[in-house]
């Protein structure tokens, strides 16, 4: 599965873009988080790997900004494994291993649209990463 961050503008909000694409391409899409109001917003969606290229294309064709998000960055130097973040994570992406060390599972993390852990870190070791510049690998290839 691959995660896409879809950013909608004010004009795009009233349009049923996501549902049109789901119907047209017959792909299952899981909405992991959504923050949208009349002024625009973001959806973090998960789709099957093989559909990645055509789905990204379809959203972009309709003017939606698509990025493959890098989610959070953890500064291993700063983290002293207190574990304050563990129980806060809604998708159980943070755990404590046998050596009492806090582990982050970047596959599970839903990133900047959640960020519940960020302000709970007393060491300020967790940063949510802005996705503005990130592009999916497949897209980068074509541009070069």
């Amino acid at each position, binding site marked *: 599965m691959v995660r896409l961050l879809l950013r909608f503008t004010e004009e795009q909000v009233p349009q049923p873009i996501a549902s049109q694409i789901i119907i047209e391409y017959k792909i299952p899409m899981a909405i992991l988080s959504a923050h949208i109001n009349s002024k625009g917003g973001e959806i973090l969606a998960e789709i099957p790997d093989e559909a990645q290229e055509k789905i990204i294309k379809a959203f972009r064709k309709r003017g939606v900004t698509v990025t493959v998000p890098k989610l959070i960055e953890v500064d291993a130097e700063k983290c002293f494994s*207190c574990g*304050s973040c563990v129980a806060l994570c809604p998708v159980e992406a943070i755990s404590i291993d046998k*050596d009492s060390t806090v582990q982050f599972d970047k596959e599970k993390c839903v990133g900047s649209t959640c960020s*519940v852990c960020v*302000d709970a870190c007393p060491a300020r070791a967790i940063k949510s990463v802005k996705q503005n510049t990130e592009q999916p690998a497949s897209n980068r290839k074509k541009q070069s």
Partner: protein
Amino acid sequence: MSKPTKTRSVEEINEKIRKGDVQVLTADEMKKLVESSGVEVAFKEVDVVTTGTFGAMCSSGAVVNLGHSDPPIKIEHAWMNDVEVCHPGAAVDLFIGATNMSEKQPFEYGGGHVIQDLVSGKEVELRATAYGTDCYPRTQLKTTLTKDDLNQFYLLNFRNCYQRYNCAVNTSDETIYTYMSKLLPRLRNATFSGAGELNPLMNDPDYETIGMGTRIFLGGGQGYVIGEGTQHSPKNLNGTLMVKGNAKKMSPEFLQGAAFTRYGTSLYVGLGVPIPILNEGLAKKTAIRDSEIITDVVDYSVPRRDRPKLRQVSYKELKSGSITINDKKVRVSSLSSIKMAKKVSQTLKSWIEEGTFFLTSPVERLPLDSVFKPMRQTEEIPFVMSVMHPAVTCTENEEIRAIAERIVTKSVNHIVVVDDAGKLKGIVTSWDVTRAMAEGKKALADIETRNVVTAQPEEPLEIASKRMAQHSISALPVVDIEKKVLGIVTSEDVSKLLGR
């Protein structure tokens, strides 16, 4: 053959350290040994058990002496990296309190970070002002300093090493930010603090070997217990320590500045105490397990001194990652680092084995009977329960017309919508009703507000009043923990009492 000895002394242990044949186990290892081989064998084989804890300890700080400037200054106010530091003594002695916050980056950088930066060898900016005297004429000062420039740099913590601590939860509808970190609404998470079975005081709960003069691991260096900590409350297993140590020899790994969102800054302190196994009783005590250490689950959404306790829980359950409260599974995380606590106990063990750390006997034991009293207050403050009055209510199937009549006959502005059991469902204001009339709406369901901001009877009125202002509303239904409506408090009640 002579009978095996039933006691050993600190002097005997130190002699073994000198000879390099001392037997040291960490608290972790000792528990396993007692479990597998019993107390008698453990006593025979083990001389010292090392303990450890690594948690946010707000009542921490450092005393520094700057030396005299030329011309000299008698500091009145001083800041280090924009964190105000206090001047408890003469001209150039300062105390860096861990919770004092930077004036430029409040809640993110504070005294704890200043201490960590100094310990790391970083340069710190000092600013000071003074009123000027004949002997100390200078009134302004600005310079940079490292720990090497300081005459004394002593960690001086008046309350460290809490024997055990509460588990914190939040039953309210809003996220709260506390010194127990971020607590999500409606019991969506829990936090706890303390190392449990690794905690120094838990391994010697009668303070047989810990007292004034006990040499300890402190912040990666050596320090001393200088007596009971503030709020020391041994009778209910809430003992604390007052400690000091030379911070110049400490390490930033074991002294880390911390920031708690909307609470403030603090200092994580690594502290470990070696427990000499002087008798079989101590061998048994150091075998204590997390399952035997019980603490309270406390509801931090009630902003009072005595917060409701929802249940009791063992550290074993707390460390398992989830606990059950009111039949609900609640995920729980630690605020102190168990990983670092273990590292403290391991480091202390290696120091003793290497012969660089010797044990001391306390010159005075910690008190076993002191009591932590609440504050004597000469002024009473008002609570929600002191001003709330019965709410005028309606049910969801009533017509707007009936509600309008009730507003008039009872001369109120707020009608609380309840179900048959008296539980809160919503609220309607006179304005909602007026607008409904104008727009020709008939059903209550079309106009009632369902996401209701509420108050609890035990809350200080001040806090309820702030909540009204925050949400720009003029009344709060008062509810109990099950959302049963007990009454209502309005902004008029507040202004009558608080005069605003």
